[in-house]
């Protein structure tokens, strides 16, 4: 039995996950919490938010995120990848700056517009 805090939403439900019984989750207030509890023990994932260099705009750094959670062990590789990306204005909010990174289905998207 493992105790975890769910990070899916700010409520932070205290979950209990039973590895012996197919990772059944109790303590969750919603279905996303059950999914989180399972995943966290089997293959933990995290959304990564950071910035990339921006050119051609008054804005120097463009905020970005992974459009879905990334396997936790790839976080620092993801950051290293972001360090190599430069966004050139104009860029729309939501634009994909890097697709299917690090052998996953995860894309890096801009979280704001980068105007000229």
């Amino acid at each position: 039995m493992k105790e975890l805090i769910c990070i899916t939403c700010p409520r932070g439900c205290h979950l209990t996950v039973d590895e012996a019984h197919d990772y059944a989750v109790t303590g969750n207030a919603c279905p996303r919490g059950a999914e989180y509890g399972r995943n966290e023990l089997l293959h933990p994932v995290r959304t990564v938010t950071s910035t990339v260099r921006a050119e051609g705009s008054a804005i120097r750094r463009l905020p970005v995120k992974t459009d879905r959670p990334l396997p936790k062990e790839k976080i620092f590789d993801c950051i290293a990848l972001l360090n190599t990306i430069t966004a050139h204005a104009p860029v729309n909010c939501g634009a994909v700056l890097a697709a299917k990174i690090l052998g996953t289905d995860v894309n890096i998207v801009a979280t704001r517009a980068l105007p000229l």
Partner: protein
Amino acid sequence: MFWLFYFGKGQKTMYDVTIIGCGIAGASLAYQLSQYDLRVLVLERENDVSMGTTKANSAIVHAGYDPEYGTLMAKLNVRGAEMMEPLCRALSVEYRRTGSFVIALNETDLPHLQKLYKNGVKNGVPGLRLLSGEEARAMEPHLADTVCGALLAPSAGIVDPWGLCIAEAEVAVRNGVELRLRSEVRGVEDHGGRYVVHTSSGDVETAYLVNCSGTHGHEISAMVGPREWDAHPSRGEYYLLDKSSGGLVQHVIFQCPTVRGKGVLVSPTVHGNLIVGPNAQDADDADDRKTTLSGLDEVADSSRRSVPCLDLRQSIRNFAGVRAVTSESDFILRPSASSPRLLHICGIKSPGLTAAPAIAEYALELLGGMGLTLCRKSSWDGGRERICFRKLSETEKAELIRRDPRYGRVICRCETITEGEIVAAIHSPIPPCSIDGIKRRAGAGMGRCQGGFCGPRVLELLARELGSNPMQIPQDGDGTRLLIEETKGGDRK
């Protein structure tokens, strides 16, 4: 030796007077000397002026009842207090004649008030008056109920100490005095008719040398002969309270000394804050300016005896200053015993700030007596203007912004300091190179958020106006870097 020679290649310029240290003592002397036909150099080890004790003190203009009658301290305190208001007006430096109280917290304090009163009268302090407890509280309602008497000195005041130092130094520079920053004095050779001064920025030749090096004064004296006094630097810690507490008292409120020590003061500042402190602890060294839990507690407890309603949670900053206390009780204002053309202006502890303009006057006399020829310049521009945006009327503000739109961009929200004022400070006769250099000139960052909001914006302006890499800009002295590196493997470090 008041004429200038340039002896050609390989020969250095020979200065008439070289001042070591550009705190309030050095700046005041430079300001005086700049009125005469002299080649004057000021050597300052830091990257800006007013970086020592001048930057961290109570900012009080003392009336002069405290120093013992007959001492230089007493004479120069009273004279300095007299000079301060017109000087500050001419230089656009903040000054306010608040008057001061020394309060008696119990009966045993009353004889001390009497003693100060008599001493003050002998020293020539104007307007001194002894008040009863009721009279004191009528003038200052937040004083403790235990106050049973007070000495009122109407001629005391408060001033902007670094503002005065910077203003005097700027006027000196504008009138031909050379200022070399980042020039620490490492050795002095006395060649009879001249000195060779070894500094971190090169050697200098000078006929006369003046030691205004603050808490390092004894070290300079030891460079020409046996050390003439011992240094006992003393550290004092302060709280600076938010402007919302600035009106708790109108006068500077001093306590009588007790077995526990000199007592702490509570005073308004020229910027509208309330300053509380200092204690007095032996400093670890001449530059020891840390605050300590025990020291701050001591200041807190002691100050509440004067003003019980003091809420120190309203503090926006703590700091400590180090005083040049020496083995001598009076100011050390005399030529060196080992070297006849080296003048010491040392041991400038309280009331040093107040006395500084008078010390400079006196130093001129001493230098004359040491053989320096003083010939007044036919023209000397001693005024200094400074725009303070927030003090202007609506119409004046509107007009100023029309003339220069940079005055319409407020950078420091807490103190309403504009881009125009900051740019003007960057292009002043002694250009600042640091965030705190801007703070000392334009006031940005002195407010309740302590630069949290304006810091990045001031940094940007400095980088832009100086054409520097933002990462090279220090918080204050050299080595106080703010930014370590660019993110994303940036090429700038």
